[in-house]
């Protein structure tokens, strides 16, 4: 009896798809690759689209960096752009503003969020809980096919009159509420409409994930045996479910301000610009945790696998995720310290923001605890995961500066913020994504990525990433503002120009190394080594079935006997133990190992029933 069968589904259109008992007929090309309802295919579709947007956002970043380093000089290669953007390759201020906005929007909404939630949520949730598919496969398909028109609208806005939205990814009103202030009318409206549509996509996904995790776990897969990726994605889905509608409401109000003449955020007729900021950040801060929690999950998974050790403090890790998700709702005001918000609220938000460092600390130290006493295999995913820990610490610690309200007076809206957000989003989320992609690539495509090129990509990215973004802290401390088309216009910034040039050169190399990754990613689909079901000797359920798994995933519904991190169990011949391996097979003894590392005399074993 499956877990879902116990949940008698009184309707025929939400059956869980199990290949085991379904007849196999090859679906048509369209059903298989385009309007597919298979969660693995949908994950790949999201992967393709979000990598495209990652590249697009990166290309915009490159052009921004050119302008910041060499303001007013024509940028080679881009001189084909129309004269409303970059006549003769010289980037115009309106185009720069559009690029900043679209860079932030692409990266956050169309690259990192779909990568973490769309790709890994879809790929991993059913596989790791032992289900044949999502609870609502058709809804899942729609979740993808709503994201596509949203992306197209966003891209199209570059081509409309007035250009793309130019009010920053935060779209502060009234700048964004009335085209008169920016000269961007339709572009801003398309931006709003696109994000609104994308919201439907996200919510559809979240409903699916939450239902699936609650109802469709395999027998024996109790909450405290779930892989941390599933935990993280589950909590993330709750954040998505509750945060996106707030944004949707705010977007609608801004859109009607633009189009119907309402006055929510326009002060001349009674509106309140601060209301936009409150609503945006009430969504926005949970959003940044949406962008990091799945990364936490991936990193935990990969670190334990690389270290061949159970994850340290599993329960604490789960509680920390839940705590971050809850505290994430009461800190939004830290983006508004200088906004003219009531200063008493500023103090309130400072305290809550400080406290949120604590669950993050728990995560960091437990990761270190996981490495301690391990037998570390430096495979490529592990490299990215270890780099994640290092870089997330830097990004998190810079958050502490900003959380202190008086210090934030000086660094708010400077490059210190830009440094912080790239450390947590690139050093954090994107490195975790690299770890995740390289780790689950064999599960998705059946082949390994080329390890040598991956290592080259890793080293280059790590070095040039830091060279590019670390100096931004200093620029911020010197008072270099964000969203600045031409920093040389300000006297005190002109002296800093060598740093901007240095950063830009680093970014050139950084982007160059990404090209290696893209090429490796594509080519390995054909040239990679065959992976086999379990190339990393990992424990969770997806590694017990072929790579890539067949439609419906599991031949028979797996039964789970233990948590996902039973590595190096003493007395067991292999150093891994699949979650669904029956205890009798697993207990095949082997002689006591020659050398055992047990750095703790006193660490108490709390058993594998986690």
């Amino acid at each position, binding site marked *: 009896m499956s*877990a879902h069968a*116990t*949940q*008698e*589904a*009184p*309707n*025929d*259109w*939400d059956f*869980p798809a199990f290949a085991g008992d379904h007849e196999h007929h090859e679906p048509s090309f369209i059903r298989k690759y385009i309007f597919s309802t298979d969660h693995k295919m949908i994950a790949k579709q999201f992967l393709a689209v979000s990598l495209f947007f990652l590249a697009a956002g990166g290309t915009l970043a490159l052009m921004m960096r050119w302008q910041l380093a060499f303001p007013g000089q024509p940028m080679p290669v881009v001189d084909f752009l129309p004269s409303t953007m970059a006549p003769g390759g010289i980037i115009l201020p309106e185009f720069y503003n559009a690029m900043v906005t679209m860079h932030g929007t692409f990266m956050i909404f169309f690259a990192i969020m779909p990568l973490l939630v769309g790709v890994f949520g879809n790929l991993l949730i059913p596989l790791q809980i032992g289900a044949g598919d999502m609870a*609502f496969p058709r*809804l899942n398909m729609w979740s993808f096919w709503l994201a596509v028109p949203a992306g197209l609208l966003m891209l199209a806005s570059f081509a409309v009159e007035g250009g793309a939205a130019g009010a920053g990814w935060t779209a502060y009103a009234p700048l964004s509420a009335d085209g008169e202030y920016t000269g961007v009318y339709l572009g801003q409206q398309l931006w709003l409409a696109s994000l609104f549509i994308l919201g439907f996509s996200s*919510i559809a996904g979240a*409903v699916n994930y*939450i*239902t699936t995790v*609650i*109802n*469709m*776990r*395999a*027998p*024996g*897969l109790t909450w405290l*045996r779930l892989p941390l990726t599933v935990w993280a994605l589950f909590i993330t889905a709750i954040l998505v*479910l*509750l945060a*996106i509608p*707030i944004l*949707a*409401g*705010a977007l609608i*109000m801004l859109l*009607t301000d633009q189009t*119907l*003449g*309402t*006055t*929510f955020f*326009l002060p001349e*007729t*009674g*509106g*309140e610009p601060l209301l936009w900021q409150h609503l945006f950040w009430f969504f926005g801060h949970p959003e940044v945790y949406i962008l990091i929690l799945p990364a936490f999950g991936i990193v935990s998974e990969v670190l334990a696998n690389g270290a061949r050790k159970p994850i340290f403090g599993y329960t604490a890790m789960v509680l920390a995720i839940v705590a971050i998700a809850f505290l994430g709702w009461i800190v939004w005001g830290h983006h508004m310290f200088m906004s003219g918000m009531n200063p008493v609220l500023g103090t309130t938000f400072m305290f809550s923001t400080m406290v949120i460092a604590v669950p993050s600390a728990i995560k960091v130290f437990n990761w270190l605890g996981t490495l301690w006493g391990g037998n570390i295999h430096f495979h490529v995913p592990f490299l990215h995961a270890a780099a994640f820990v290092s870089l997330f610490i830097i990004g998190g610690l810079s958050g502490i500066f900003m959380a202190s309200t008086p210090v934030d007076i000086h660094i708010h809206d400077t490059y210190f913020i830009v440094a912080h957000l790239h450390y947590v989003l690139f050093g954090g989320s994107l490195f975790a994504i690299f770890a995740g992609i390289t780790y689950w690539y064999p599960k998705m495509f059946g082949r390994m990525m080329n390890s040598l090129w991956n290592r080259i990509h890793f080293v280059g990215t790590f070095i040039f990433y830091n060279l590019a973004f670390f100096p931004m802290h200093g620029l911020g401390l010197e008072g270099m503002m964000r969203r600045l088309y031409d920093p040389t216009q300000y006297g005190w910034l002109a002296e800093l120009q060598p740093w901007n040039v240095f950063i830009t050169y680093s970014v050139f190399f950084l982007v160059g190394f990404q090209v290696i990754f893209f090429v490796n990613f594509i080519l390995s689909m054909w040239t990679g080594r065959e992976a086999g079901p379990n190339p990393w000797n990992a424990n969770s359920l997806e590694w017990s079935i072929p790579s890539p798994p067949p439609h419906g995933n599991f031949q028979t519904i797996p039964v789970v*006997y*233990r*948590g996902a991190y*039973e590595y190096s*169990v*003493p*007395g067991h011949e292999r150093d891994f*133990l699949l979650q669904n391996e029956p*205890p009798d097979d*697993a*207990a095949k003894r082997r002689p*006591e190992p020659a050398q055992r590392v047990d750095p703790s005399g006193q660490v108490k074993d709390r*058993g*594998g*029933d986690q």
Partner: protein
Amino acid sequence: MSQTAAVSAARGPVDPTRPEPGLGAYNLKLGMWVFLLSEVMFFTSLIGAYIILRFAHPEHFAAPGEVLNVPLTAANTFVLICSSVTMVKAFAAIARDDQKGLQLWLVATIILGSTFVGVQVYEYIHLFRDGFVPNAAAYTAGGGPLYGSTFYLMTGFHGLHVSIGVGCLIWVLIQAIRGRYSSSHLGGVEVMGLYWHFVDLVWIVLFTIVYLI
């Protein structure tokens, strides 16, 4: 730590078939509940904006009944409450395998729901004539333009939800006529009901906040 203890710890509890029982609600129903939670947040952002703007600018808002037609809307509220009871009756009917009852109560719900939307449109038309419009520049009714902006956005999005609900009801009715439901097969009717009652619930709150306070 003894080896055997570690191995048995790694094995976990001996009963391997112990199922983890989910939440006790089938997927479709659970999914609908989860979706409704996001709807709560959506209406929160609209209603919250209204509360905050009204608190910040009381001068933009008029006393109950001054601009809006309270008796008409009270009657309309009653219509929506009735539609909730017909909806739940439809569900009760199919739970008894009463196909005719299901269809009749669904038709009643559709009629009541459409009436609600119709009355709202009628109300909009009249308010427009009085200069109570969403456009701040053209606003001439009592209070100030924030009143019009917030009113139309909140009631408009609620009306949109009712309209979508009527559309879904029609679809459910077609399925019912085709005999797709039975007492052991009523998920579609039940989640339709959940959505419909939720929309009713939102209106109860909206009506109070927008018309009566």
